[in-house]
């Protein structure tokens, strides 16, 4: 009987775990919807910002803003966007893996590598690994605000302007669909406006009045453009986090179900064996009396 009892205890504990993973799946599902909405809401601004950036860059082509200056690459900064919480599948791991291969390449070329981190998972990882971290921010939460990440962005742009780093890459998760997220590296600094043919309206047949002049406007525009890129990445990462968690928790719940089935089978067998044994004993006892 004791074996059956033990198995029953195990079933109970797996069932409890399954309850938790199921709940987490449901929570992630509803949060994912909101995060996706937030991602969509950031799009108009990012789109307009890109357009303005293209215009201003085209209008002030003879002026190079400090944040757009190309330099020979001796020091590289990676700005990593990671989650604050775990249990979201391989989301953060994929980002770290991507960065590590890049880092190895840079080490071989004798290029110094440093990091700026958004999200506490990144911070915890580099604490274990070691490495030069110039700025970090954690606890961005489900509703990331510009205010929270401004410190890191400013630290990175300042270090670029002062020549402490010659290139900045943004590493973040791209939301392909609910099942798929992809770690991607994009160049953040020197800032480059994407190709002009992406503009939808007007074309470049006419130009704006710039007030103050286009080069002076550049200061505001480049900074905002960089901020908008980072913000978009963070919001997208939040959507990735929730969907990755949802998928991971669904897999965990399914696995728990399988384990419960197996245990149930073992339990039934143990119980049946016990009954058979008892019957045999009774029959044996009766035969001995006769």
């Amino acid at each position, binding site marked *: 009987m004791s074996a059956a009892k033990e198995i029953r205890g195990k079933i109970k504990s797996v069932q409890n775990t399954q309850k938790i993973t199921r709940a987490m799946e449901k929570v992630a599902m509803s949060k994912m919807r909101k995060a996706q909405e937030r991602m969509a809401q950031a799009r108009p601004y990012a789109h307009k910002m890109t357009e303005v950036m293209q215009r201003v860059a085209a209008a002030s082509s003879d002026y190079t803003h400090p944040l757009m200056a190309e330099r020979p690459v001796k020091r590289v900064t990676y700005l990593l966007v990671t989650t604050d919480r775990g249990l979201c599948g391989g989301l953060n791991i994929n980002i770290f893996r991507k960065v590590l291969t890049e880092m190895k390449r840079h080490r071989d070329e004798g290029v110094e590598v440093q990091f700026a981190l958004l999200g506490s998972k990144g911070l915890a990882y580099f604490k274990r690994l*070691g490495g030069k971290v110039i700025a970090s921010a*954690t606890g961005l939460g489900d509703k990331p605000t510009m205010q929270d990440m401004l410190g890191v962005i400013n630290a990175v742009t300042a270090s670029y302007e002062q020549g402490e780093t010659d290139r900045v890459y943004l590493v973040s998760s791209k939301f392909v669909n609910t099942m798929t997220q992809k770690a991607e590296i994009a160049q953040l600094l020197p800032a480059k406006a994407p190709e002009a043919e992406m503009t939808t309206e007007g074309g470049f047949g006419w130009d704006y009045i710039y007030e103050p002049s286009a080069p002076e*406007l550049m200061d505001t525009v480049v900074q905002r453009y960089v901020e908008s890129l980072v913000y978009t990445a963070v919001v997208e990462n939040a959507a990735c986090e929730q969907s990755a968690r949802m998928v991971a928790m669904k897999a965990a719940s399914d696995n728990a179900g399988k384990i419960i089935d197996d245990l149930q089978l073992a339990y039934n067998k143990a119980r049946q064996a016990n009954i058979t044994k008892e019957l045999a004993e009774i029959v044996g006892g009766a035969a001995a009396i006769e």
Partner: protein
Amino acid sequence: MAELQLDIVANEGEIHSGKAVMVVAPAAQGEVGIAPRHAPLLTALKPGEMRVETTDGQRLTFFVGGGILEVQPDRVSVLADTALRSEDADEAAAAEAKRAAEASMEGAESESDLERAQAELAAAAARLEFVRKLKGSAHK
């Protein structure tokens, strides 16, 4: 009647979208009033009040914390900043982010049981920093 398509967008989402006959915005070099068929204009905004008169005669006001104003003959787009900012605040935020990184990375390559304690320390420091930042922005 001529009208403008007005879109006020921020990073966090769209704030306002609709038709207008007059828009007054706090541009960097003084307040500008924009009526339909205004010449194309691109300018920075400083923090201030935006006044809008819609096609049905309604008067709306918005507060913008700075940003960029784009004017085309039939449309006005405002890229509004939502975060509070000034030169000082920007610098302070950057310093905080650096300090947070330094504090949490201290003794990074030491023993593994120290790590958990350090992780907690980092979290506490980050929270403290957050509160400080909140307080800071409340004073301004």
